């Protein structure tokens, strides 16, 4: 590469709002219903049906706007975006083009290069489309309109990001804020948060923007990072070869790690927006905005402070746990049950984080209940199981949400606190390992570690380690002098 290039990235983030009903009708938004069981004449676009706006959608959009320092549009409306596709039964999507509900906001991100402010161009409300399933046996597609009309907000950033690292930091910040607001669960893999990446490159130092492409189908942070790297290199290669970049929408294939253009040039992309005549204007008073501001929840900084004060958590713990609303909620629920905040924190920051990483999961994908972690902590606290067994049981809880009480009982994992039994086992171990015993006697204190291990093995890990140490030392001493 002869020249230096700069990557310029802006994001369009769609977030599915966690309302009970759709944006314009009283159909349920519950996930996983049988096809078309959550539909009505409004969300299937029947002639003569009329949409009525869900007030909660407006409030959720305002909440996100206020959290991202946007100004709220006090006189707003909806517009129709016209296009033909079977997932869209009305042949138009109700969206906001001219007067989006929020504008001119910003989000502060932090990367290894320091702090940076990313501008928010606008946030608008719109409806989701249905789901198309391609029939495996026949030349046809099947449409399920359960998602049709589910409320979305689209958060459009300014082209302020310069690297995949900044993009991920921005998305993580948005996701955390939105989860704290309780407005959406923001699961990338389930599509309740979707990010489209607009990317262009330009020679370093240039002020003019290059021709951009839009990348779709990015279902994880990793996919986003890979797609950005790939698209950046594709564009630079084109420029180096003296070719032009075509402004187009591309689809990312994360398995093959490449993207392809989604639409041909002949394909008309003229949405002929016009004001939605079926919906009346939306007027947001100062009083309503003030009420929404008051209702903003406890955000991360406040929560962090409270965890330190109320639960006595160290800075580091408070910071990690409040980094995800899910972890924070989980922490509070488990602490409420077992009254051991530091123990809960240790399990979350240690084993939970380790397993999440190992299984490539996000905190919101945690499947186990706070109750079972609380029970596990109670078992370790009362000395019923030792830490080795606890880790083993925890992995079962993590994967299958088993009840630790019955699991420990069924598998006979209870720590043996019977000193008589332990003594006879240790006596046997000492007899079988005269070399280690001698080493220990000759001042090689480390040899005791091996003997502890042998004892634990003989006890199938169920011994109380403190007691093992104590009895071992006692017997070793007696053999020397006795």
């Amino acid at each position, binding site marked *: 590469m002869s020249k230096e290039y700069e990557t310029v990235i802006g994001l*369009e983030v*769609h977030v599915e709002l966690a*309302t*009970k*009903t759709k944006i314009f*009708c*009283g*159909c*349920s938004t519950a996930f996983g219903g*049988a*096809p*078309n069981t*959550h*539909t009505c004449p409004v969300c*299937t676009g*029947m002639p003569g049906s009329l949409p*009525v*706006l*869900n*007030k909660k*959608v*407006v409030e959720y959009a305002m909440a996100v706007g206020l959290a991202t320092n946007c100004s709220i549009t006090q*006189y707003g*409306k909806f517009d129709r975006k016209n*296009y*033909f*596709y*079977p997932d869209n039964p009305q042949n138009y*999507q109700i*969206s906001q*083009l*001219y007067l989006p509900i929020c504008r001119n906001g910003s989000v502060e991100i932090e990367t290894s290069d320091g702090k940076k402010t990313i501008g928010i161009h606008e946030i608008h409300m*719109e409806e989701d489309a249905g789901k*198309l*399933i*391609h*029939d495996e046996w026949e*030349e*046809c*597609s*099947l449409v399920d309109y359960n998602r049709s009309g589910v409320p*979305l907000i*689209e958060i459009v950033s300014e082209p302020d990001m310069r690297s995949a690292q900044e993009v991920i930091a921005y998305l993580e910040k948005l996701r955390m804020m939105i989860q704290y607001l309780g407005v959406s669960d923001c699961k990338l893999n389930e599509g309740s948060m*979707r990010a*489209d990446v607009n990317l262009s490159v330009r020679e370093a130092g240039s002020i003019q923007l290059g021709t951009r492409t839009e990348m779709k189908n990015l279902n994880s942070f990793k996919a986003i990072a890979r797609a950005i790297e790939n698209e950046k290199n594709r564009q630079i290669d084109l420029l180096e070869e003296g070719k032009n970049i075509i402004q187009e*929408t591309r*689809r990312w294939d994360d398995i093959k790690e490449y993207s*392809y253009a*989604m*639409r041909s040039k002949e*394909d*008309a*992309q*003229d949405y*002929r*927006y016009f*004001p939605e005549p079926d919906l*009346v*204007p*939306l007027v947001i008073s100062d009083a309503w905005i003030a009420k929404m501001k008051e209702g903003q929840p406890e955000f991360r900084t406040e929560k962090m402070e409270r965890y330190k004060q109320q639960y006595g958590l160290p800075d580091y713990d408070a910071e990690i746990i409040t980094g995800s609303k899910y972890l924070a909620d989980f922490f509070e629920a488990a602490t409420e049950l077992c009254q051991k905040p530091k123990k809960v924190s240790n399990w979350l920051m240690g084993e939970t984080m380790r397993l999440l990483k190992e299984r490539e999961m996000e905190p919101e994908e945690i499947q186990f209940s706070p109750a079972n972690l609380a029970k596990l902590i109670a078992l370790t606290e009362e000395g019923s199981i030792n830490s080795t067994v606890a880790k083993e049981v925890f992995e079962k809880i993590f994967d299958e949400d088993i009840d630790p009480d019955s699991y420990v009982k069924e598998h006979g994992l209870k720590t043996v606190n019977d000193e008589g039994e332990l003594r006879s086992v240790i006596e046997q171990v000492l007899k079988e390992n005269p070399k280690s015993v001698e080493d220990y006697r000759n001042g090689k204190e480390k040899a005791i570690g091996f003997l502890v291990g042998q004892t634990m093995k003989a006890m199938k890990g169920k011994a109380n380690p403190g007691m093992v140490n104590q009895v071992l030392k006692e017997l070793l001493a007696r053999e020397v002098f006795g």
Partner: protein
Amino acid sequence: MEDLEKKQQTNCKNSGNLISDETIEYVGILAKLDLSPEEKEQAKKDMGEMLDYIDKLNELDTAGVEPMSHVFPVNNVFREDVVTNGDDRENMLKNAPEVKNGSYQVPKTVEGERKDPCL
């Protein structure tokens, strides 16, 4: 408001009384209409007349008049976020051209040609 005017102006880039073959072809594609040569001629004439009418409206001096977004003097009509509709699939699917597995059956639609609403 400036933004709005600009967008509206670009929407009306074909204003004028003569509709070209290219324009009618383009509008036909957008509206998913397959027009015969006779129908195209008729549509060109109709559209020209519609634009003439709009030109007439444009003669009115609207300087200083706020554009309105709706003809009714009503705003903020809301629903509360309460589920009111149950499962009415059987009835809903009566509107489907074809039904399969509780879904609307449509001609095969390939992913690559997808026109995503969320642009």
